[in-house]
C-alpha cells in the first residue's frame, strides 16, 4: 500500500545519492516540483532517465545533481535548446555529464521491458542510424522463427520512478488521464515510486481515458497542487508558455541560472505559481 507523505519526506526517503531516477510525463504531467525538491535536497551523482529531459532535467543538470543522463530527446519543447544540458555535455559544467542515448521507441520499450520483468525488448528500431555504435544498451536479436534480425534494447529498471498525476484517493490509488505517456511503465519498472498529485480525494470518480495505478503498486503519494507547473495537468492547469520562453534566457547564462537556483529553489521567497 502506498503511503501518503509530504513531498520533502518522500524525496528524503526514496531518492538517494547515486540512484537511477526516472521522472516521466510526456510533455504533460511533468513532475517539476518533485524535481525542485530533489535539487533542494542536494542529491548528487544521479543517473537521470527521461525520454524528453525538458526543463525539469535542465534544472537538475544545471544544479549538479546528475552524473549521467539516459534520454531520447533533449530540448525545450516549442522553444529551442536546453542550455544547461548543452553546457554540461559540451563543457562539463557544473560537472561532467555522461549520456546514454536512444530513440523514443527504444526508451519506451526499455520501460515496457522493465515493467514486464524482462531483461530486454525487441523492436524495429535504429536501422541505418549511428546510435547503436555509441549506446551499449542497443543490440540485436534474431527471430528464432524467421531468422530476421531485429533491434533489442536493455530493460530500464530505475531505483526510483517519479510521476505527477491528477488525483489519488486516500488509500493511495493513483489516477491520471489525458496524455498518459510512459508513466504506468515507469512506476512498474522502478524499485520504488513516488507520485505527486494535484489533489487527494475520498473516491476516484470514473474518468474516460484514465490510467489507474493501484495503491499496492506505488510506494508513496504526495499531494502537490500545481506540481507539474509549468507543464500541463489536464483538467487542472494549462501550460505556462511564458515560463518555457523565459527559461531560454535564464538557462543560457550560468550566472542567471545560479540566481534562479538561489531565488526559486533555495530562497525562501518563490514566484507564485
Amino acid at each position, binding site marked *: 500500500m502506498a503511503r501518503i507523505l509530504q513531498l520533502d519526506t518522500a524525496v528524503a526517503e526514496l531518492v538517494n545519492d547515486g540512484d537511477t531516477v526516472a521522472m516521466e510525463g510526456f510533455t504533460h504531467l511533468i513532475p517539476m516540483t518533485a524535481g525542485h525538491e530533489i535539487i533542494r535536497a542536494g542529491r548528487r551523482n544521479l543517473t537521470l532517465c527521461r525520454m524528453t529531459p525538458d526543463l525539469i532535467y535542465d534544472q537538475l543538470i544545471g544544479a549538479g545533481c546528475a552524473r549521467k543522463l539516459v534520454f531520447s530527446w533533449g530540448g525545450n519543447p516549442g522553444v529551442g535548446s536546453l542550455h544547461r544540458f548543452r553546457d554540461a555535455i*559540451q563543457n562539463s559544467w557544473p560537472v561532467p555529464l555522461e549520456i546514454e542515448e536512444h530513440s*523514443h521507441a527504444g526508451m519506451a*520499450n526499455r520501460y*515496457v521491458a522493465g515493467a514486464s520483468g524482462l531483461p530486454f525488448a525487441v523492436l524495429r528500431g535504429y*536501422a*541505418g542510424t549511428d546510435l547503436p555504435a555509441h549506446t551499449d544498451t542497443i543490440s540485436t536479436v534474431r527471430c528464432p522463427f524467421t531468422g530476421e534480425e531485429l533491434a533489442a534494447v536493455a530493460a530500464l529498471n530505475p531505483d526510483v520512478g517519479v510521476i505527477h498525476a491528477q488525483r489519488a484517493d486516500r488509500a493511495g490509488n493513483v489516477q491520471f488521464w*489525458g496524455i*498518459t505517456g510512459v508513466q504506468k511503465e515507469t512506476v512498474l519498472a522502478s524499485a520504488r515510486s513516488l507520485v505527486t498529485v494535484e489533489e487527494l480525494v475520498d473516491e476516484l470518480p470514473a474518468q474516460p481515458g484514465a490510467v489507474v495505478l493501484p495503491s499496492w503498486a506505488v510506494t508513496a503519494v504526495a499531494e502537490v497542487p500545481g506540481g507539474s507547473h*509549468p507543464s500541463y495537468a489536464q483538467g487542472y492547469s494549462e*501550460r505556462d508558455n511564458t515560463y518555457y520562453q523565459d527559461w531560454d534566457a535564464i538557462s543560457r547564462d550560468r550566472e542567471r541560472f545560479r540566481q534562479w537556483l538561489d531565488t526559486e529553489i533555495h530562497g525562501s521567497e518563490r514566484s507564485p505559481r
Partner: protein
Amino acid sequence: MSDELSEVPAASEFTSDEMMTVAASRSLHDGAVCFVGIGLPSTAANLARRTHAPGLVLIYESGTLGTKPQRLPLSIGDGVLAETADSVVGVPEIFNYWLQPGRVDVGFLGGAQVDRYGNINTTVIGDDYDSPEVRLPGAGGAPEIATSCGEVLIVMRHSPRAFVSDVDFITSVGHGRDGGARAELGLPGRGPVKVITDLGVLQPDERTNELTLTDLAPGVEVERVRAATGWPLRVAEELGAQQPPTDRELRILRELKATLGNGESS
C-alpha cells in the same frame, strides 16, 4: 488538390516560410494517416485538414490518434490534442502498435543537417560524438518515423550549413551513406520522397537517390539554391515552379498561426 491549385494565385505578399508550409500542406493527400511533430509539420497538417484534405488523420507521438485541434498545439503534450482525438493511447503503444507496423502513410522530419542522400542529423555537430562542437536535441521519434512510415517529407530551411554532403551523424536514415541503404536494410517505407525548403523542393533521383532540385519557389533562381547547398546540386531535367499560396491558403494559414497564443499561464 487540383481545385486548390487552380484558384487564382495570391495577390498578397507571403513569406518563404509560408510558401514552405503551404507546399508541405499540399503534399498531404486526403485520407492519409500522418505522423506529425510540433512546428511547421503541425501547421502544415492542420492547414491541409482545413483546405484540401479534411479526412487527413493526424497522429502526434504523444499518443493521440485522429486528433482534430481547433487551434495549433503549443507542444505535443497540449491538452487540445487529447481532447479532440478519436483515441488517446500510451507512448509505447503509439510506437509499437501504430508506427512500427506501417500503419502511418506520411511522416515529417526536419533536422540540423540533411545530406545528399536524405540522411538527417539531429544528434551532434562535429566528428567526435563524445565531445561535440554542438550538442543537438537527439533522436526523439525520428529514427523509427524514418524507417516505418510509408513515405517521409523533410522540411528544412536551405543553407550550406544545413544541406551538407555527408551528415556528421545519421540520426534518421534517408538512403544511407551511399544511397542504397533502404534496400540493403530491407526497410518497409520509401523514405524521404521530398525535401521541402524555403527555396524549393528536392527529390531523390530515381536511379541514384541523390537529392535533386525539382521545383523552385516563386522568385528563386537555381544559382541561389546551388549556393545554399553543400554538394554540387543536380537539377531535374524538367524543373517545376511552385504555385504561390492561394489567398484562401494564406488566410487559413494565418488564422491558424494566430491561434498560437503566447504566454498562456496556468
